[in-house]
C-alpha cells in the first residue's frame, strides 16, 4: 500500500496549498476570459456577423481550448496519467466530477424529458443526485483509502485472484462503452447542427477533440479540461433560462420563482383540455386512429382497396376534361407510388401510424398535466387505478436504478482516486453535488418556462405568422419538429405540433427570442457536456484494458512507460470503435444510457459495498454475484426492450415482471447480485487473513496497513 505520511506531511500540505493558489489564479482568469469571449461574440453579432460564423467560432474556440489544455498537461508519468498526481483539490475535483457526470443526456435530454413528462421526469433529477448519497456513505472514502488506480483494481485485491478482476474489467468495459457510444452520437448531432457538416463527419471532428486531450495527458489533462468544460456548460445552461425567467417574471432567479409559472401552466392546461379547437383536432386524430384500426383488422383487403382507390383518382384526374391541374396529377401519382409494397410493410406502417394518432388524440398532445404525479387515478375506475399503481411503481423503480447506477459507474468512482486524502474524498463528494445541483435545479425550471412560452406565444398563432424557429427546425429534420394544420382553421393548436424532447434545450434560445449567440453558447455547452463525459469514459475503458488486464494479469513486469503508452494506444482503438458504432446510429440512445446505469448498478454495487462492509464476502461469491446481477439485468432487457428484442431475434411475447419497464432492469439485477454474494459467501471458505487486513486498512483513515 502506498501511503507516505509522517515528516513529509507538512511539506506536502504546504506544496498542496501553493498548488491550489496557482490553480485558483488560472481558473479565475479562465472564467473572466470566457465571459469576455461570449460578450465579444454578442457584440460582433449585433454588428452583423452571420449566424453560421457565430456557431463555427464557438465550436472551434472551445475545441481549441480543450486541445490546448490537453497539450499543456501531457504526461508519461503513471500517477499523473492514471490519477492526476493525486493532488487535485476537492473543489476542482468536484467540478471535474460534475462535468464527467453531466453528459449529453443531462444537458440536452433532461430538459426535454421534463418538458414532455412533467413530474415523471423528476425521477431522473432525484436518481442522478441521490445516488451521490450512496457514493459518499458507502464508497468514495474507502476507495480513496485503498489508493490504487481503478475499480477492477479494488475487486482484484479485495477478492483475491484474477477472476473477480476479470469480471470487473468485463463489466466496466460493457457499461462504459455503451455509455460512450451515446455521448459520441451526441457530439455528432451538435457539431452537425452547429456547423452544418454531416453527422458522420461531426462525430469524427468531436473525436479529434476528445483524443487530443485524453490521449496526451490522461487523467491529468482530462481533469483540467473537465474543469473548463464544467464552466462552459453551466454558463450555457443558466444564461437562457435566466433570460426566459426575466422575460416572464422579471426575476432573474428561475429556480425560486418557477412554482408560480407552474401554476399558470396548470391553469393553461385546463383551458387547452376544454378548448373547442383543440377538441376538433383531437377528434380528427381519433378518426384517423379508428380508420387505421379498421384497416389493421384486415390489412390485405384494405391495402388492395387503397391501391384501387388511388388509381381511380389518378385516372379521373388524368382523363380528358378532368378537373386536375398538373400539380394535382403529380400529387396523385406520388400518393399511388407511396403506398406500401406488401401487406407486412403496410401492417408495420399502420401500427406505427395508429400509435402516433392515438397519442395525438389525447388531451395536451399526450403529455401528462405537468404538475400531476403519476398518470391514472387512485380513486377512479379499475383501469385508472391500475395505471396509477403501475406509473408509481415504475417511477420508484427508475429512481432506484439510477441511484444505484450512479454509485457504481466506474468513471465516476475513479474520480475519487484523484484527490489527496480520504478527508478530501468526502469533501469532494459535497463539491460534486453542489456543482451538479446547479444544473439539476435549473432543468425543471427550464421545462416549465419553455412550456409557458409555447402555450402562450406559439399555440393559437395563425400559421402564416409562426415564429421563424419553427420553420428552421422542421427543415433540419421533420422528426424533430413538425406542424400541420389538421383541422384547417389556419391557427396552430397544441396537438398540431410535434416536438421532440431532444431539441427543447437546443432550440430554447430561439423559442425565447434570444440573439443567436445564446444558441451558439448552448450548443457549445452541450458539446462540452458530451465531450467531458466521453473523455472520462474512454479513459476508464482504456485503463481497464492496459492497467487491469495487461499490467495486473498478463505482464506484471511491464515498465510504467510501456503501460502508459499501451493505454494511449488502446484509447485510440476504443475511441475509433465507439465512433464507428455511433456512426451506425444505434436505434435508441436514451436506452443505451439507462442500460449503462442498470448494468453498472447490478455488476458493481453489491460487490463493492459488501467488499468494504462485510469481511466475510468471498472472491468466488463476488464473481458469481457480479455475473448473476449482470445476467439478470441483461436477460430482462433483452426479452422486454423492443430494440434489443429485434437485435437478438426474441419473438416470445413480452413478459414484464410486475409491469416494470425494461429501462429499470437493474431493479432485479441488484438484489440478485446481493443475494448471490451473501449466500455463496456463507458456503465458501472465509477469506484469508491478508484480505481481512486489507479491509481493516480501507476502513480506518489513519491505518497504515503494515
Amino acid at each position: 500500500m502506498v501511503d507516505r505520511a509522517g515528516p513529509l506531511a507538512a511539506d506536502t500540505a504546504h506544496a498542496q496549498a501553493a498548488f491550489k493558489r496557482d490553480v485558483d489564479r488560472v481558473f479565475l482568469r479562465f472564467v473572466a476570459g470566457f465571459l469576455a469571449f461570449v460578450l465579444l461574440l454578442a457584440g460582433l453579432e449585433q454588428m452583423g456577423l452571420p449566424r453560421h460564423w457565430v456557431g463555427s467560432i464557438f465550436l472551434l474556440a472551445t475545441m481549441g481550448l480543450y486541445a490546448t489544455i490537453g497539450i499543456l498537461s501531457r504526461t508519461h508519468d503513471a500517477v499523473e496519467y492514471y490519477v492526476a498526481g493525486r493532488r487535485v483539490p476537492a473543489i476542482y475535483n468536484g467540478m471535474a466530477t460534475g462535468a464527467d457526470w453531466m453528459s449529453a443526456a443531462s444537458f440536452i435530454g433532461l430538459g426535454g424529458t421534463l418538458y414532455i413528462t412533467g413530474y415523471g421526469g423528476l425521477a431522473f433529477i432525484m436518481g442522478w443526485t441521490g445516488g451521490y448519497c450512496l457514493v459518499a456513505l458507502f464508497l468514495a472514502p474507502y476507495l480513496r483509502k485503498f489508493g490504487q488506480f481503478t475499480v477492477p483494481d479494488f475487486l482484484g485485491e479485495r477478492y483475491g485472484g484474477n477472476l473477480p478482476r476479470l469480471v470487473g474489467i468485463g463489466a466496466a468495459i460493457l457499461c462504459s462503452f455503451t455509455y460512450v457510444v451515446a455521448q459520441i452520437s451526441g457530439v455528432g448531432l451538435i457539431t452537425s447542427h452547429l456547423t452544418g457538416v454531416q453527422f458522420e463527419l461531426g462525430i469524427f471532428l468531436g473525436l479529434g477533440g476528445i483524443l487530443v486531450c485524453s490521449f496526451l495527458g490522461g487523467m491529468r489533462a482530462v481533469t483540467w479540461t473537465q474543469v473548463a468544460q464544467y464552466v462552459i456548460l453551466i454558463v450555457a445552461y443558466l444564461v437562457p433560462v435566466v433570460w426566459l425567467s426575466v422575460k416572464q417574471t422579471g426575476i432573474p432567479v428561475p429556480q425560486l420563482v418557477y412554482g408560480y409559472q407552474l401554476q399558470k401552466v396548470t391553469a393553461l392546461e385546463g383551458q387547452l383540455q376544454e378548448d373547442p379547437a383543440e377538441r376538433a383536432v383531437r377528434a380528427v386524430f381519433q378518426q384517423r386512429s379508428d380508420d387505421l384500426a379498421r384497416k389493421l383488422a384486415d390489412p390485405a383487403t384494405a391495402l388492395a382497396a387503397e391501391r384501387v382507390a388511388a388509381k381511380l383518382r389518378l385516372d379521373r384526374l388524368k382523363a380528358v376534361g378532368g378537373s386536375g391541374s398538373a400539380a394535382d396529377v403529380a400529387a396523385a401519382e406520388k400518393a399511388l407510388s407511396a403506398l406500401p409494397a406488401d401487406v407486412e410493410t403496410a401492417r408495420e406502417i399502420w401500427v406505427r401510424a395508429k400509435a402516433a394518432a392515438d397519442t395525438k388524440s389525447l388531451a395536451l398532445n399526450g403529455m401528462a398535466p405537468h404538475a400531476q404525479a403519476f398518470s391514472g387515478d387512485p380513486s377512479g375506475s379499475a383501469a385508472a387505478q391500475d395505471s396509477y399503481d403501475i406509473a408509481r411503481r415504475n417511477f420508484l423503480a427508475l429512481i432506484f436504478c439510477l441511484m444505484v447506477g450512479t454509485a457504481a459507474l466506474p468513471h465516476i468512482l475513479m474520480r475519487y482516486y484523484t484527490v489527496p486524502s480520504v478527508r478530501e474524498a468526502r469533501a469532494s463528494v459535497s463539491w460534486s453535488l453542489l456543482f451538479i445541483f446547479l444544473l439539476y435545479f435549473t432543468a425543471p425550471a427550464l421545462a416549465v418556462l419553455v412550456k409557458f412560452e409555447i402555450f402562450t406565444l406559439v399555440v393559437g398563432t395563425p400559421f402564416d405568422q409562426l415564429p421563424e424557429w419553427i420553420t428552421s427546425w422542421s427543415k433540419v429534420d421533420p422528426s424533430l419538429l413538425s406542424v400541420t394544420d389538421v383541422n384547417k382553421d389556419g391557427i396552430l393548436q397544441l396537438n398540431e405540433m410535434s416536438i421532440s424532447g431532444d431539441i427543447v434545450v437546443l432550440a430554447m434560445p430561439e423559442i425565447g427570442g434570444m440573439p443567436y449567440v445564446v444558441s451558439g453558447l448552448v450548443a457549445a455547452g452541450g458539446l462540452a457536456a458530451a465531450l467531458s463525459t466521453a473523455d472520462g469514459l474512454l479513459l476508464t475503458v482504456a485503463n481497464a484494458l492496459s492497467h487491469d488486464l495487461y499490467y495486473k494479469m498478463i505482464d506484471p513486469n511491464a515498465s510504467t512507460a510501456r503501460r502508459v503508452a499501451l493505454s494511449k494506444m488502446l484509447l485510440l482503438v476504443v475511441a475509433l470503435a465507439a465512433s464507428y458504432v455511433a456512426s451506425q446510429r444505434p436505434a435508441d440512445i436514451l436506452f443505451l444510457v439507462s442500460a449503462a446505469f442498470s448494468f453498472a448498478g447490478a455488476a458493481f454495487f453489491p460487490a463493492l459495498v459488501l467488499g468494504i462492509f462485510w469481511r466475510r464476502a468471498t472472491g468466488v461469491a463476488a464473481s458469481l454475484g457480479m455475473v448473476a446481477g449482470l445476467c439478470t439485468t441483461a436477460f430482462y432487457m433483452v426479452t422486454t426492450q423492443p430494440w434489443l428484442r429485434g437485435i437478438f431475434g426474441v419473438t416470445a411475447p413480452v413478459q414484464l415482471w410486475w409491469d416494470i419497464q425494461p429501462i429499470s432492469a437493474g431493479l432485479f439485477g441488484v438484489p440478485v447480485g446481493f443475494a448471490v454474494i451473501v449466500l455463496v459467501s456463507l458456503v465458501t471458505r472465509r477469506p484469508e487473513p491478508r484480505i481481512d487486513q486489507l479491509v481493516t486498512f480501507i476502513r480506518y483513515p489513519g491505518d497504515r496497513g503494515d
Partner: protein
Amino acid sequence: MGVTSRQRSYWRKNQRVIAGLLAIWFVITFVVSYFARELSFNFFGWPFSFWMGAQGALLVYGAIIWWYARYMDKLDAQYEMQVDDD
C-alpha cells in the same frame, strides 16, 4: 494485525451514522414519492411533491453528504485517525 477496540468503536459509530442517514435518504426519496399524489398541497406555488422531487430532495441529499463529511472529520480527529495520506 488485529482490529483494536478503538478501531472497533470508531467503525460502530460510523455504521450507526450511515444507517441513520440512509434512513433519511430512503424516506425522502421513496416514501415521499410514494405518497406524491396525496402530498400535492401548495408550497410557494409548487405542489409540495413536485417541489420535493425538483429541489427539496436534492437539498436533503446535499445536507446528508455535507453533514456526514463533517461528522467523520470530527470522528477521525477524536479517534486520531487523521493522517495526511497521499
